[in-house]
């Protein structure tokens, strides 16, 4: 556990065709470089899980890696829509995309159940919405003490959980800070996990708001400076807001997207986004 490897070796070892893969990072510490390495290794028929599919999943979906998407908000934050995601949903291009849609509260609790070794989680959610009727992953549950009806959602335990973090030490202990999202939950819920980090150091030092995941909870660690671009790593980089806008123009046209794929992903040896 906590094995340090190259990004290429880690993806090759951990991600297989047909796997359920969750790349997480709530606007912060998104493992974009790892997503692009999955594209580069031409993985197919993945079930992609993510609360906020944004540019990284637009890229993976457009590249034809995914057969299904489990999510709660699919957009380009602050800019608009995800053209590749829309093209897949509305026109099955390049391949059909099955979707399973939830709310943030539902997705977050599904990861919590997964991390807790429970088959389901309970929340006050979905009541009265049209979401519940579209999936068998939202069901009513009755409180055995009060008789009140609440909502149950099943645990998420992805085959692979991938996040980006600021630091790891050489033993593979991982540390991240700032907005931590569902980082801890997805790593603990996943059967296998990969953490890409800005920097591998000899010793982690305590920091306000920092979360540490011991090496024995992380399968592999890869040093990928800038691996969250165009999202950011608190204390290392700023969010590249211009790229989010640029992405819209790239993603709107299939040909522009294909050109971007060839130039930015397949022609490169991997690591950092353009």
């Amino acid at each position: 556990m906590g094995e340090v490897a190259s990004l290429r070796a880690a993806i090759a070892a951990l991600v297989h065709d047909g796997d359920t893969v969750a790349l997480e990072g709530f606007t912060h510490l998104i493992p974009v470089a790892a997503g692009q390495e999955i594209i580069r290794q031409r993985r197919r028929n993945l079930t992609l899980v993510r609360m906020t599919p944004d540019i990284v999943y637009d890229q993976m979906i457009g590249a034809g890696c995914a057969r299904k998407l489990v999510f709660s908000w699919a957009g380009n934050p602050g800019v608009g829509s995800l053209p590749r995601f829309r093209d897949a949903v509305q026109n099955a291009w390049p391949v059909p995309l099955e979707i399973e849609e939830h709310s943030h509260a539902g997705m977050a609790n599904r990861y919590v159940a997964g991390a807790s070794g429970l088959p389901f989680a309970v929340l006050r959610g979905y009541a009265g919405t049209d979401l519940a009727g579209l999936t068998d992953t939202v069901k009513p549950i009755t409180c055995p003490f009060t008789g009140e009806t609440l909502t149950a959602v099943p645990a998420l335990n992805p085959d692979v959980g991938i996040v980006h973090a600021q630091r790891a030490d050489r033993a593979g202990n991982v540390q991240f800070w700032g907005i931590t999202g569902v980082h801890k939950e997805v790593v603990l819920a996943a059967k296998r996990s990969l953490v890409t980090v800005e920097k591998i150091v000899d010793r982690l030092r305590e920091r306000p708001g920092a979360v540490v995941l011991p090496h024995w909870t992380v399968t592999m660690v890869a040093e990928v400076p800038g691996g969250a671009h165009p999202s950011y790593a608190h204390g290392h980089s700023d969010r590249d807001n211009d790229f989010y806008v640029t992405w819209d123009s790239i993603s709107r046209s299939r040909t522009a997207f294909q050109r971007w794929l060839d130039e930015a992903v397949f022609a490169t040896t991997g690591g950092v986004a353009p």
Partner: protein
Amino acid sequence: MTVDGSGQAAATWTDEEMMIVAAARALRDGTRCFVGIGRPSVAANLARGTHAPNLVLVYESGTIGAKPTRLPLSIGDGILAETADAVVSVPELFNYWLQPGRIDVGFLGAAQIDRYGNINTTVIGADYRNPTVRLPGAGGAPEIAASCREVFVIARHDPRTFVDRVDFVTSVGYGRGPGDREALNLRGRGPVQVITNLGVLEPDPTTCELTLTQVHEGVDVDQVCAATGWPLRVATAPTTSTAPTPTELTALRTLRATIGSGAP
């Protein structure tokens, strides 16, 4: 339009600015506000910069009591974590902070909103599996709309947005009318104000139907009715919102100037 009838230099503003200012005014100082990105965040930060310095901003990224010195560009902007009273995980935010009803106001946008304040941010078109337009989806909205003590909605006023019945209920307002929220065991009161570029709609106390209670300066009622996709009920005497003050406009434009491209 002129700010006032006095002799001083006339200032003009857009209906977009009027909408943001009206939304900001609706936020009382000291309240805890669950803020979505885009217009709700602009309005909430404007309020905090003007009449509501103690407004508590809560973002779904887990930042509680954020005090950004510039407009955040995403709900996860680093400046929110740097200035927050507390940063918690996303599961904790939804379970410990939103779900129990600790947040006073939920501030939402909408792609479609209907007569009963139900919101659609999922799909346009009758067939979910084959939509005319695929929208981003629910995000935090369903539980924000369910659990906050009150909900404010901000949206530009046109018949495609203000529809008789939403194509998809992403977030529940008053369902199909009185009693529905109670039947669904939803904790909050539901949408109490819908603020647009033309005026303000509020639910009728007995029927829960959204009713025009306020028009912005220079807007007439017929204009609002024409921009609404159902026969809009109008309060007996709708008030008129006062124009943005120079202070409000300066604060809003300064705030907007803090963001570059890639802005919400």
